């Protein structure tokens, strides 16, 4: 059996990739995908700890996250479609109307 630490290490690596992706990429689509990565890394952690403790709570929570993530993707994609209509671009840096 693979030790829990490996799963946690995988989750941490995915989370790090996702976080850095959100911070450094400029395409909003990629940023959204990176957010998905971060969400799924959290899912892995949840499931790992659920297995460790022999409890289902974490796995249930993972399902909730998947559902919420699906909803979030629909909202996010709708936003991106509208942004593209407005700016003819998906570059996040070109959206700075709220700059003071």
């Amino acid at each position, binding site marked *: 059996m693979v030790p829990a630490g490996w799963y946690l290490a995988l989750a941490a690596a995915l989370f790090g990739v996702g976080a850095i992706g959100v911070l450094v990429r400029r395409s909003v689509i990629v940023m959204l995908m990176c957010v998905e990565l971060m969400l799924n890394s959290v899912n892995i952690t949840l499931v790992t700890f659920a297995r460790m403790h022999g409890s289902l709570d974490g796995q249930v929570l993972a399902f909730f996250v998947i559902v919420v993530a699906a909803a979030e993707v629909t909202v996010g994609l709708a936003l991106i479609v509208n942004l593209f209509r407005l700016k003819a671009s998906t570059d996040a840096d070109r959206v700075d*109307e709220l700059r003071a």
Partner: protein
Amino acid sequence: MALESVTQAADGTLLWWSWAIPVLPAVSAAVLLLLGARMRRAVAAGLALGSVGLSAVLSTAAFVAVQAGGGEAVVRTVARWMPVGDLQVDWTILLDPLSTVMLLLVTWVGLLIHVYSVGYMADDPRFSRFFAYLNLFVASMLVLVMAEGLLTLFVGWELVGLCSYLLIGFWYERPTFASAAKKAFVVNRVGDAGFMIAMFVLLATAGTLSFTELVPGGADALGTGTATAVGLLLLVAAAGKSAQIPLHVWLPDAMAGPTPVSALIHAATMVTAGVYLFARMSPVVLPEVGTAVAWVGAITALVAALVACTQRDLKKILAWSTVSQLGYMFIAVGVGSSVAAVFHLLTHGFFKALLFLVAGSVMHAMDDETDVWRMGGLRRAMPWTFATAVVGWAAISGVPLLSGFFSKEEILAAAADTPGAGAILVIGLVVAGLTAFYMTRWLVLIFLGRPRHADLAPAPHPHESPAPMVAPLVVLAAASALGGLINLPGSQWLAGWLEPSVAPFEPAEPMIGHTLLEVVAVAIAAAGVAAAAALYLRRVDHERLRERLGLLHELPRESFYFDALYERAVAAPGHALARGSATFDRVVIDGAVLGLARGTAGLASLGRRLQTGWLRSYALAIAAGALLLVVVVIARVV
């Protein structure tokens, strides 16, 4: 003592209706103010004249009714006004010999001047407004003289001050006229402060402001300290309203107003309010306070008479003469002879109103020229004006058998009968001579001699004034000539009439026999007339004369530099204070407020930089925050 028996006016009697005397002109003033601009001039004038005329008739009826009651004072509470704790202030009317005789003067002279104004103001674009103010003035003056207490009197006192302000500044388009109005208003405030403090003192000590409660007790009931304080404070008040030194500076400037205003307000009625106040309060005035009043009057009479000798403006000469004659009245109330003061008040009301209306008639004929050196020889063009002017001149100069002669003699005799008033008597005699001098100068320069205006370009074409202006002149001339009849030395009708109202005059051993005094006064007046005739009827080099007189001419010409003194001593520090306050406001107050605002704005512009509008910078902030939280949690666990 005065005002001892007082009755209430019975319902429905004539005196019960006396409240209508001031209300009628007040209503007319309100109607004219609201609707006057749309009225035809004849309607507006008819309303104004009708209301004052009705007041005059009612006043006469009130006079007759009081006379029928044997001169007993009648009070009539018209309206509840202010119930404040123990103090109940009502609008109460007091009708007694003193107030009814003032009513007659105010309403009848007021009516004549209304008639005159119809002619004088005929071409003025604000015709109805002028009559509204004039009506309001008459109403206010009637409130003043009919007041039963100091507070009601003060209401009238302030209202006449307001009307004076409105009418001096009637032609407010001219900045000097507007500032003359403001000057009159501000200087009068100084006197009003004295009036108010006097009322506070009376309320605190006697607890009442009612004449019928204060006057019968006299000064004894108040105690020496209170009576002295009240008397001196009322002197301040009276000096403001009646233009006595040092508060006289506003009256000469007040000549900016239309001439009927000068005649009514600044000669015959309002400026005599101070004298009326002292006559009314005479039992409360201590002899020591009286001495102060008499000296203020004497100094004012002398200074103003000197100034009047050197002025060039025909109305200013009369204004200074008014100040001087008011000084005479103050001498009379000061030495304790209220009868002499009221007598001179009445005769002066006639002849000074007459002289002012003559001046208006002359200005009307001369295209508003006011410099007497640019007139002369007008007697041919304006025979009626000239004839009435001669009567006025004779009355004020003290020509025997005319009104001014008797009233002036009465004052001089009262001074002669007062111990310690020798110097005042001498001043009075000197002023009598100066009065004759400057009035002769006035008459000669305007009406006699060569018509100097013929050299002017464009030369005016003097003409007699229209009938509405001439008729009041004739009536007032008759009153000026015959006014002395009311208190002839033999009959003393006025003295007997006023007896229930004012403190009696107790003559001491006369310093000089009254007959001798009359002869001396007439001789001095004759000398004044002769001197003026010699100087102004013949060709005299006046430039050289002025140079030789030097300071003796310069001081009076510059009104003894009172205005310059007040400018330096009061106005300049006031300006400095105002500028200082403005700087303080701008630097300190505004600085604090604006500084706070700028500080807030600065902080905000710093905080604003956080809002970059970049999505990724927000993400970075969130990530950094999350990382920080993780570090904190781990640090606490470990």
